[in-house]
């Protein structure tokens, strides 16, 4: 993995459209290694779509995506597998496998990567579940968990293989403030202790203020702002101030 200070991910002129509607109109963004980058933007603005490009779940119409210097934009499914092993992803609704218990879900990435020792699997799963405060719930099925618990379980699954980079798709959406705070602290801890590069897609400003090293704002398919958290708050750009203060221009 790239050393600190370098860019882990470089995206150039990324374009995507679905059924004739342009979602991304030339996104340019660098994600520095070892930092937490928050990608802000309105709902339906293409943030999740952008995130899925970074792990090759969606192929771009045009443009370049380099991960650790390697171009992935046009790699075939099997060629993407080594890249995906370095990256963890937390999906918006968790995307837990509903045919498996919570334990099996969290253990899944370990077993798929050839971990045969049941003792090691148990220890790692227990530690992962403890990190997201889900100890003792490991025999429950995903359908018996609340939305917040599912999301935390999915986070436990994403971090269990200790990836160098984690993509978070709306990690705190729909969670109560206390659980949100737990998730925020966890993201912060991953960054400070393990030097994990994180990309967090959100529109939660409390979360952004707590976790972000850098902030990018996606607007109308392009990066409207890209800078530090301090720069974001000192900006006088009305688009940014409206977003931070949650102001729409609808008339009452």
């Amino acid at each position: 993995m790239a050393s600190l200070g370098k860019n882990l991910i470089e995206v150039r002129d990324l374009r995507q459209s679905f059924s004739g509607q342009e979602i991304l109109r030339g996104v340019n963004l660098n994600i520095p290694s070892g930092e937490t980058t928050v990608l802000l933007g309105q709902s339906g603005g293409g943030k999740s779509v952008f995130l899925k490009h970074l792990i090759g779940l969606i192929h771009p119409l045009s443009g370049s995506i380099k991960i650790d210097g390697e171009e992935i934009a046009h790699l075939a499914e099997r060629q993407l597998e080594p890249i995906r092993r370095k990256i963890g992803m937390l999906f918006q609704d968790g995307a837990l496998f509903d045919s498996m218990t919570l334990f099996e879900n969290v253990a899944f990435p370990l077993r798929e990567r050839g971990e045969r020792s049941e003792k090691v699997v148990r220890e790692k799963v227990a530690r992962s579940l403890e990190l997201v405060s889900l100890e003792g719930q490991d025999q429950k099925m995903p359908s018996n968990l609340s939305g917040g618990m599912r999301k935390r379980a999915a986070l436990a699954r994403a971090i269990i293989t200790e990836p160098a980079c984690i993509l978070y798709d709306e990690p705190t959406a729909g969670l109560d403030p206390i659980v949100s705070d737990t998730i925020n602290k966890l993201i912060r801890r991953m960054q400070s202790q393990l030097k994990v590069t994180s990309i967090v897609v959100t529109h939660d400003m409390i979360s952004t203020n707590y976790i972000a090293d850098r902030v990018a704002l996606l607007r109308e398919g392009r990066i409207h702002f890209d800078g530090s958290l301090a720069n974001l708050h000192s900006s006088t750009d009305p688009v940014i101030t409206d977003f931070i203060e949650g102001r729409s221009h609808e008339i009452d």
Partner: protein
Amino acid sequence: MKFSYSFPLTRAFSLYLGQIAFLVGETFTSIFLGRIRWRLVLNQIVEIGFGSQAVVIVTGIFTGAVFTAQIFFQFNALNMSTAVGPVVSIALCRELGPVLTGLMVAGRVGAAICAEIGTMKVTEQIDALRALAVHPVDYLVVPRTVAMMISMPLLVGECIFFALTASYYVATRILNVNSVFFMQHMWFYTHTKDMVMALTKGFVFALIVVFVGCQQGLTTSNGAVGVGRSTTEAVVISSLTILMINFFLTMGLNIIFPAGGKF
């Protein structure tokens, strides 16, 4: 050379065949390269094969029984009641056994495969698999394909066995056909090649059900409505394909295993 599609249906059909072809190619490449998760294959054999037995047995018993009765009513008028055995047996081996098993399995297993994979698709579980560097074909399609290839010929055999048992009881106990003549004629006119034909057809129908089900599941979109639509389509497409392919299989296999005579 430039292709142009005069009708949208032609285009959709070509696209569909293309998707199925890629899925088949990807699946068999994985099977030949040994990317088989045997634990999942065993689970699927239980789900698909073991779980389908009741449906297949009931289908076999009542088809055998009713077919025997009808043949008897016609043949008895011509004083040929002992020919019921071979007629029923050959019809079951060469056509009814594999086709009816195929249709029942398409309804039960094809629908289940499509609904499960389709739900995984719309809830991002397929994306989660891919993000965890697990190929969905290796994890979902290969185990189901291997399980179907093993289970389906066995289910066809089971269907035929129970159908013939029912036929024997109906003919000899209810319709008073002489049991010795019934068995004697059945054994004499039914050959190994008829059974080989049944199992070959079962194997082909297994592939139709599993690939149509998986393909429909993997291309599901539009939430719960989409899952419902894909599942219906999976059952309809695989059932119709079984009926159509069956005709061509019969014609083709009859060249290799001609009807009548000794094997």
